[in-house]
């Protein structure tokens, strides 16, 4: 046995990703692998010696980037998330053709539902477009979750939940987004982006929210090149000694600031509103105020970007009417949200409120009863389609907290049982 276990790095080969730091495609793969907890080696294509060490040549044809060397040795040129996921064996076929419950999204709500459903004997499948954990999965430390007095990171919470769900027999299908849902008798058929079909006697949308886009000229050109939506763990180390700006007033933004403050020279949190307490937990506000390299600016927003091949600075305007000012920035993380992920549900006619959140039984924001086909009222968490439920951030009226999402996901399972009993076979 070796005497030195230096840093718990895997002893078997890991995939190597060669790309440019300014590449959006390379960032997408880095983010995907990081969020899935898949160890990989990153090689900057602009470093000839590093490239030679892994490829034997100092340069790579730009059209071949990003290039992924799989652990088995084969190479994927112009790699995409989908091809890397398939090459690493992360894309599995469903084990069954029909499930009692098909869950869309593997964030806290979806995973809580999976654990509870599978533990109660329901045939359960979870479909996740990117990685388990949802927005909470990128959270560095959740300190107010019951039962974790010292806090738990979002990724570790997701890892444990996945293990727990699988132990009870739930299936997780990763790396393929849901393309659409259609009615099929009393149940539904979900189609994934690769054409895979899953029949669910009941469906739970726990698809969460996406980060809201920041409306600043030129921002799309800098995605992955200093501008990021969310605060994925893949970039934390790269921010060592950098000047980092985080935009947002919620807990996700606050937790991102805490994480980056451990690495970056300076972290600035920009909040459009005037009261951080309106959207962020007090423990996080207290935490931020005690970190010396963190600067919180309220009533401030980004109005411009400065860049060459990557972000170099931002222009901010404060709400006091003063002139916009330039601020040097190496990385800008946008954690404002969100936009409910309901694209895949659009075709089936799920009722939403004006902001796009799914309306469920008892909500006053929409009128699910108008198209409701059954003599009974919709159950709590049930949408305007019998047997289609919603839980977590995607649901109108939900509390945007991890514990609340877990509660809704767990609660949904009891309601799914009632629906299954109604259609028979439960």
């Amino acid at each position, binding site marked *: *046995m*070796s*005497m*030195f*276990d*230096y*840093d*718990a*790095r*895997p*002893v*078997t080969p890991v995939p190597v990703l060669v790309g440019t730091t300014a590449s959006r495609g390379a960032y997408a793969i880095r983010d995907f692998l*990081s969020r899935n*907890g*898949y*160890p990989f080696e990153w090689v900057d294509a602009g470093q000839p010696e590093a490239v030679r060490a892994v490829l034997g040549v100092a340069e790579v044809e730009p059209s071949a980037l990003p290039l992924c060397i799989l*652990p088995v040795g084969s190479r994927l040129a112009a790699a995409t998330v989908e091809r890397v996921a398939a090459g690493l*064996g992360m894309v599995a076929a469903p084990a069954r053709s029909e499930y009692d419950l098909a869950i869309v999204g593997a964030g806290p709500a979806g995973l809580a539902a999976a654990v509870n459903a599978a533990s109660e004997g329901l045939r359960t499948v979870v479909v996740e477009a990117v990685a388990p954990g949802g927005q909470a999965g990128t959270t*560095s*430390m959740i300190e107010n979750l019951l039962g974790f007095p*010292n806090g*738990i*990171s979002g*990724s*570790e919470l997701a*890892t444990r939940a996945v*293990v727990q769900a*699988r*132990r009870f027999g739930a299936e997780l299908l990763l790396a393929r987004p849901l393309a659409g849902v259609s009615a099929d008798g009393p149940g539904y058929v979900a189609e994934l982006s690769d054409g895979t079909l899953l029949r669910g006697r009941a469906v739970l949308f726990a698809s969460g929210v996406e980060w809201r886009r920041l409306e600043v000229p030129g921002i799309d050109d800098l995605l992955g090149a200093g501008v990021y939506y969310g605060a994925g*763990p893949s970039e*934390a180390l790269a921010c060592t000694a950098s000047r980092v700006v985080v935009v947002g007033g919620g807990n996700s933004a606050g937790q991102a600031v*805490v*994480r980056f403050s*451990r*690495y970056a020279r300076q972290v600035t949190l920009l909040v459009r509103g005037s009261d951080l307490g309106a959207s962020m937990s007090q423990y996080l506000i207290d935490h931020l105020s005690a970190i010396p390299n963190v600067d919180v600016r309220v009533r401030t927003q980004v109005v411009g970007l400065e860049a060459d091949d990557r972000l170099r600075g931002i222009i901010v305007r404060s709400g006091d009417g003063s002139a916009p000012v330039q601020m040097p920035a190496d990385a800008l993380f946008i954690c404002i949200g969100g936009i409910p992920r309901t694209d895949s549900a659009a075709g089936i006619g799920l009722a939403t409120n004006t902001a796009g959140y799914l309306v469920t039984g008892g909500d006053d924001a929409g009128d699910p009863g108008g198209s409701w086909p059954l003599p009974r009222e919709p159950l709590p968490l049930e949408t305007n389609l019998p047997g289609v439920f919603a839980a977590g951030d995607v649901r109108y009226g939900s509390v945007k907290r991890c514990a609340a999402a877990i509660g809704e996901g767990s609660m949904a399972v009891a309601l799914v049982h009632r629906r299954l009993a109604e259609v028979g076979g439960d």
Partner: protein
Amino acid sequence: MTEPPAVAGPDTAVSSEFAVLASGEQIATAAAALERNGIRPLLAATGADARGLVRSLLADGAEVYNNTSQTLEAIGVADDIERSGRYQPLRLRLYRMDREMQRREMRTLAASPDYVVGSVHALTEDGSLLIASASGSQLGPLVSGAEHVILVMGAQKIVRDVATGMRRIYEYCYPLEDARARRAYGVPSGVNNILIVNKVVTPGRITAIIVNERLGF
């Protein structure tokens, strides 16, 4: 500790008295002694057989930590643990954790796996296991943290007694390990901690698989 110079190359391993396979009689003697000491001995003719034994001992879905070990890498056990999907490989889980934010989680996770799988630096004919460590991080789970311990060792690691085992560590293993650490991590190794397991109070907690091949160093 002052950084010692790198001293060893592969030739050292081949020429050393400590690279010679033990006889069948020595293997049988050591195995019987292990059993008396509460350590379950299993014999494997080949590395492939040992790999099969490890597979049969590990429970599906268990949290498994594989120590860095050329033995485990050579016979495919490291690959089984990290990449088969049958277990929860803790190395991968730890490696992806944020060392700044998740230090506490990392410490607790690494300290108490369901299984730790590793090797030893020497096995004495009277059934003692000797394991040296630079950081000491590997030793806690071996002593008591892990629920189960599986140690795979080539039969060249069998020595007469503890004194010879210590000599094996300092004169043979350390130079080779130091060279490996410098290559792999760019830092020297060190015989900073030595664990000697003479007897276990929970019989069967540790399984020692002796392979009749020269594996690792």
